[in-house]
């Protein structure tokens, strides 16, 4: 039992905006009152629901590939020393699993979603998530280049495709469905890409990226998944991709969708020299279409490691930068590419990218539909979120930074003209309440009775970049996990998974295809439920 008294509470889900009130906790949940137990005196502090990261890359084959590729980064990383309570590890661009849990919790985040999981190696992803302490977790499973699904779309068998998607989600022990560069990754298996939405994907005659996007969004809604289709659009990172992104959002009309790392998809211009921000055009469309949510995918200047299932983009980035290139194509399903990268304030393209991320956060007017992410570790590391929060809250600081950009870059963005400043309530919304709602996690991101007791408590002053960097207390599932900046308790998180309804007969359809196309037997493919620690299974009855 625990009581937090005297803190200013910010709870957007309940419309509570800086009201001093007590919060009582028992059995991991928020309750009306408790009798006895520890009391935290939170006078002079602000109380937030624990942070929810809707899109990050913290576990699995691609990230582990990146760790192996960048030992030179680890040498500069924050070292976590082994103690009786805590495992050793390294922070940095691609933190080790234990350090990932400590770093998220140490910043006040208590739930994270690993956004790109190939089913073939999902066992590996879950092993890593099991070794990621404190935070609760979930996975989005890669589907938009799954050739069994694409073959069914080619044949017009949408009903069977729906059964297959349902079966695959459960096989991977996933929570949501992710689409990355629909059709483009499968084309990359022949060294090609999918640059337009309406042309057939390489190797197909009836399947276009538009068809993949519309079909998957429809299937996800039909299955009643709590989180809509999680979409990484075609043409990521390319000047002029605003047209593709707008066209994609039109394809999604009538369905829900979450647009991942929208910053990377909001560029105008014809080439790298003429690249400019089109955040305003994207935000205008987005504001008028409540079926959509998005995360920013903001970038910050400094070192990053880009990791994405978007293989063709990574080959291009390698050719542009001459940096190391890792590529891992996954049979029948997906691929991934890895290129270390440094974002420089003096570089025109990087400067525009930096501005676009902030512009989107400021121009999309409903904080319940745009969430704070950096597409970690692509745009910046997740532990740099407090720097972005500071910029969102202070227009004068932004203007000073804009003035330091190359003159050409300043003319390609309107960031300096934007006066909006985020309030603390807005910050609580984009870091917690909003992403929790978009994920369909009813007990996260709020501080009402019955909610999971996940809280972050910060000093109200000083108001600066440091404000959100060092919480005074972090409470996860009712336990104090961080106190005075130190990890106090290494608790294990839960893993959220969904079990959609499907007809068992679909296995008889899939089994021979496996024998033909895979190198693993059908029985070995699904992730065993026992492999997960703290699995929190939600049965879905949605079936059309």
């Amino acid at each position, binding site marked *: 039992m625990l009581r937090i008294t005297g803190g200013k509470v910010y709870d957007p889900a309940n419309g509570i905006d800086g009201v001093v009130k007590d919060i009582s906790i028992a059995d991991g949940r928020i309750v009306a009152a408790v009798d006895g137990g520890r009391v935290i005196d939170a006078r002079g502090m602000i109380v937030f629901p624990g942070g929810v990261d809707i899109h990050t890359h913290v*576990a699995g*084959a691609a990230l*582990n*590939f990146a*760790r*192996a*590729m960048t*030992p030179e980064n*680890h*040498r*500069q*990383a*924050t*070292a*976590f*020393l*082994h*103690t*009786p309570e805590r*495992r*050793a*590890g*390294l922070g*940095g661009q*691609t933190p*080790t*699993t*234990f350090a990932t849990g400590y770093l998220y919790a140490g910043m006040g985040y208590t739930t994270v979603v690993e956004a790109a999981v190939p089913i*073939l*190696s999902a*066992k*590996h992803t879950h*092993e890593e998530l099991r*070794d990621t302490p404190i935070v609760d977790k979930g996975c989005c499973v890669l589907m938009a280049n799954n*050739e069994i699904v694409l073959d069914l779309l080619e044949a017009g068998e949408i009903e069977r495709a729906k059964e297959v998607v349902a079966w695959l989600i459960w096989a991977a022990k996933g929570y949501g469905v992710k689409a990355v560069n629909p059709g483009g990754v499968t084309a990359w*298996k*022949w*060294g090609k890409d999918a640059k337009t939405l309406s042309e057939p994907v390489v190797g197909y005659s009836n399947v276009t990226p538009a068809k993949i996007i519309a079909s998957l969004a429809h299937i996800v809604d039909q299955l009643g998944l709590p989180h809509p289709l999680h979409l990484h659009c075609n043409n990521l990172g390319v000047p002029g991709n605003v047209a593709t992104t707008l066209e994609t959002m039109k394809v999604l009309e009538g369905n829900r969708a979450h647009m991942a790392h929208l910053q990377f998809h909001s560029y105008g211009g014809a080439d790298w020299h003429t690249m400019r921000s089109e955040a305003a055009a994207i935000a205008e469309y987005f504001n008028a279409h409540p079926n959509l949510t998005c995360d920013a995918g903001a970038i910050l200047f400094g070192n990053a490691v880009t990791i994405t299932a978007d293989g063709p983009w990574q*080959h291009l980035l390698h*050719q542009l930068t*001459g940096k*190391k*290139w*890792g*590529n*891992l*194509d*996954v*049979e*029948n399903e997906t*691929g991934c590419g*890895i290129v270390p990268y440094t974002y420089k304030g003096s570089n025109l393209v990087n400067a525009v990218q930096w501005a676009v991320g902030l512009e989107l956060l400021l121009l999309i007017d409903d904080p319940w539909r745009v969430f704070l992410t950096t597409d970690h570790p692509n745009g910046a590391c997740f532990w740099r979120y407090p720097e972005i929060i500071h910029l969102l809250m202070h227009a004068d600081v932004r203007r000073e930074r804009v003035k330091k950009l190359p003159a050409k870059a300043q003319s390609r963005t309107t960031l300096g003209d934007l006066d909006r400043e985020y309030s603390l309530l807005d910050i609580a919304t984009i870091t917690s309440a909003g992403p929790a709602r978009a994920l369909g996690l009813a007990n996260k991101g709020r501080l009402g009775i019955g909610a999971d007791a996940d809280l972050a408590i910060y000093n109200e002053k000083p108001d600066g970049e440091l404000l959100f960097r060092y919480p005074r207390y972090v409470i996860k599932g009712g336990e104090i996990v961080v106190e005075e*900046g*130190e*990890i106090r308790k290494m608790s294990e998180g839960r893993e959220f998974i969904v079990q959609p309804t499907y007809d068992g007969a679909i296995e008889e359809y899939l089994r021979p295809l496996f024998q*033909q*196309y895979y*190198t*693993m037997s059908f029985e070995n493919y699904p992730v*065993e439920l026992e492999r997960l620690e703290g699995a929190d299974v939600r049965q879905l009855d949605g079936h059309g």
Partner: protein
Amino acid sequence: MGGKVTCTLGEIKNRADFIVYWGGNPAECHPRHFTKYTLTQKGKFVPNGRKDRTMVLVDIRETPSARAADIFLQIKPGKDFEILTTLRALVKGHRVNEASVAETGLSIEQLRDLADRMKQARFGVIFFGMGLSMTRGKHMNSAAVLMLAAELNAFTKFVTMPMRGHGNVTGSDMVMRWSTGYPFGVSLCRGYPRFNPGEFSTVDLLVRGDVDAALVLGADPGATMPQPGIDHLARIPTIVLDPKVTHTSRLARVHITTAATGISAPGTVYRMDEIPLPLRPALVSPYPTDEEVIRRIREAVAKKPAWAQRPAAMAPTN
């Protein structure tokens, strides 16, 4: 430069029409590689199986794998790096010094032909073995083959994969990476992971006599290490966990017999392409699993008072 352009084995099965084995003898060392993944399987985009594929073997001697190859290229020992570098130049259309090519054991025509075939492949792959990665040039040879495959992607689809084997070496590599950031050669002596192959690798530590106890799990260094390393293992308290008697268990102070993983103990093994497979035991063993033994040792150690002072919570190194 660095990195690796690779794929899972099913991509080879479904797509590869041009397959190179370099410095390895899969017919004897990975006997199911040809039939499960690379040569004889009919794949989605190579429907005629073996007929749709060309196999090249590059090695210093004619091993039984040569019989499976369409083209066998016998090279002089220790010339892998020169050949790979020449191939990289030929692929890009650069001029090469024909006199130095003569020393490699291959003619410039053979190398041109190989470079052309690589560029004309629809989907090519190079599997490389310890004959490349552990001979003269070592990691420079590996880097050269990785670069060659990466650069071929300017012309066609091309990947590469090391032929790893023996036990669950890839699985160990994976777990080390996610828990310490590094694949091997990790020291935790300062309380956090540090990496320096040559300094912290097992073989170097043993040969230098730097360690004063050893726990050996899933390996038989007594059979493969240089003699000074083996001598040191015999000198210090060495504990071996193994289902059977090994060279190392014979010189160890303690040998704990454990259940054989995959036969009577469950677990997960990672294939050479880093894909995990569950192991389902077929038999019951009277012996404990490796995991159980390690867990019990750990619990016993945890009961002892800490020998060192508790360090500060986080020590930023930058």
